[in-house]
């Protein structure tokens, strides 16, 4: 991370680079939106963004307007405007290539917790907002990308509550046995320091790349479990000048999203 990049800018840039042009991508609220717009402005002008309230293929106006996911700027010049049941049907039938989600906590098998900490569901130690549409996205989309701050407390051996399914207990075919669509699951985890995938056999989170200037050990030290490490860990370039310019000048000049840093 160059000295003045925020953690949010790093996560967003790394995430945007993963999204291919002329693919469909189910986009969650907040940071995933900014990443998708950035991807559209660089390598994926015809990325078909899809939102859970039913907009398909918008070309969002910038500056990005925080909160109004359903408003005119964000839904500008869509291909179709539908509804939630319709758009999740399309995801369920296999039409969505990517899903991009934020998360509060994740474990080694990519299970995501955005519901609660503690043992007693009715009296949690800490309560979070819940699934939103994340459970559907993580269940239905072909390749799910999870984007999160790189903080130790967020990477835990086993999440207290599985809000959205990763590879469950990691046993071969665990998702399919549960009835989830075949050949789906978390594909990448993007953080402010690194990029992870999942091992094909063990389904364990695997370090694929680290931000230029960081060592794999530094990244792993800030996780509460030990991920697998790829034979060759890629060096991830920090946000380019072009990426930063577009983020800072075009998409989010008020820095409501890109200004975020880890609380830890």
């Amino acid at each position, binding site marked *: 991370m160059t000295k003045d990049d925020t953690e949010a800018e790093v996560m967003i840039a790394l995430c945007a680079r993963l999204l291919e042009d002329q693919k469909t991508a189910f986009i969650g609220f907040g940071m995933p939106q900014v990443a998708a717009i950035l991807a559209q402005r660089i390598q994926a002008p015809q990325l078909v963004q899809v939102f859970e309230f039913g*907009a398909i293929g918008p070309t969002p106006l910038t500056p990005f307007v925080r909160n*109004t*996911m359903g408003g005119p700027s964000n839904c500008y010049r869509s291909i179709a405007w539908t509804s939630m049941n319709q758009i999740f049907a399309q995801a369920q039938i296999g039409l969505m290539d990517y899903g991009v989600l934020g998360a509060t906590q994740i474990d080694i098998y990519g299970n995501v917790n955005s*519901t609660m900490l503690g043992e007693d*569901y009715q009296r949690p130690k800490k309560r979070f907002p*819940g*699934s*939103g549409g994340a459970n*559907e996205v993580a269940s239905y989309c072909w390749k799910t990308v999870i984007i999160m701050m790189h903080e130790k407390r967020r990477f835990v051996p086993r999440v207290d509550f599985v*809000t959205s399914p990763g590879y469950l207990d990691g046993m071969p075919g665990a998702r399919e046995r549960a009835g989830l669509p075949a050949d789906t699951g978390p594909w990448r985890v993007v953080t402010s320091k690194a990029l992870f995938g999942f091992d094909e056999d063990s389904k364990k989170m695997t370090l694929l790349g680290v931000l230029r200037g960081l060592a794999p050990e530094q990244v792993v030290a800030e996780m509460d479990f030990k991920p697998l490490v790829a034979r060759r860990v890629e060096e991830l370039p920090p946000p380019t000048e072009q990426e930063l310019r577009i983020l800072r000048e075009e998409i989010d000049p008020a820095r409501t999203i890109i200004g975020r840093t880890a609380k830890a």
Partner: protein
Amino acid sequence: MDVLESGVGEFRFTDPDEVRSWMRTHKGREFVDKTVSEAEAVGRFVADGDYVSFDFSSFTRGPLVLIREIIRQGRRDLWYCAKFTLMESTLLAAAGACSRIDVGFMGLGDTLNRAVEEGKIKVSEWTNGTLTLRHLAGAMGVPFLPTRALLGTDTLKYSGAKVVKDPFGGKPIALVPAVNPDVGLIHVHQADVYGNARCFGPGVSPLETAAASKKVIISTDEIIDHDDIRKDPAKTTIPYYMVDAVVYAPFGAYPGGLPGVYEMDFEHFAGYYAQERQGNLKAYLDKYVYSVGSHLEMLEQRVGLARLNDLRRRATVKEGYR
């Protein structure tokens, strides 16, 4: 088709024949003027203990006028359906109006999360998609619909869904029970006096919410001629016989926006966030709900025409919203 797993969450379920019987006797097919004030609509159609559903979002085309009126009238023990929910669930909880929540997404800020931690609010766990699917089941008059979401998760465990073996293909599949809310609250762009209503832009589930709910209150930014409805029938989102009351409420979605008509009020939300973080929503409610007698009074005395005009001016993108 054995039941392989059952969630332990409590859930609202009404036998489809009981729903039908309600629809037969309470949903009038008469063409009568249903326009009433928000006070009368909430007074007549929202009772303590009701299961309440809402569309679409507090930021976009939400019936905030009705939410505030529910709070103003002091309703208690509502069971709130938090699908694509944000500010309004938080306000209802802060006002002590709701005691149970079906969680899709919890709210705006930590107020609700703390209320759950303290045991003041009971919750069942769902998702935005499955809560919306439950409304579709309710709108179709069937007891359940199948989904491949929820499976394998704790979300399912704390929901009311069941997992069965699909008798056609043999794989496990989740069934979510229909929900037929006691009250559905929907803000629309246009409605005639009978309740034929139009929403423009994408939306979560205005039709499913209206069709599934036993009592439906529409708030609308415009009243249009019935004849206009008949000139463009493809634009009708909700037919009149699903609707019990029509509340004429310009800026009814305020502080959220109505696409193509007015933008959300960012400054207002900034103030809300600040008070929410300070745990001072009482002051917020005092200012915008308790100290004013109506939506009109709130707009006039707490927002002002200059701000309202500005919000309309900012809504420059009109394409597709008419």
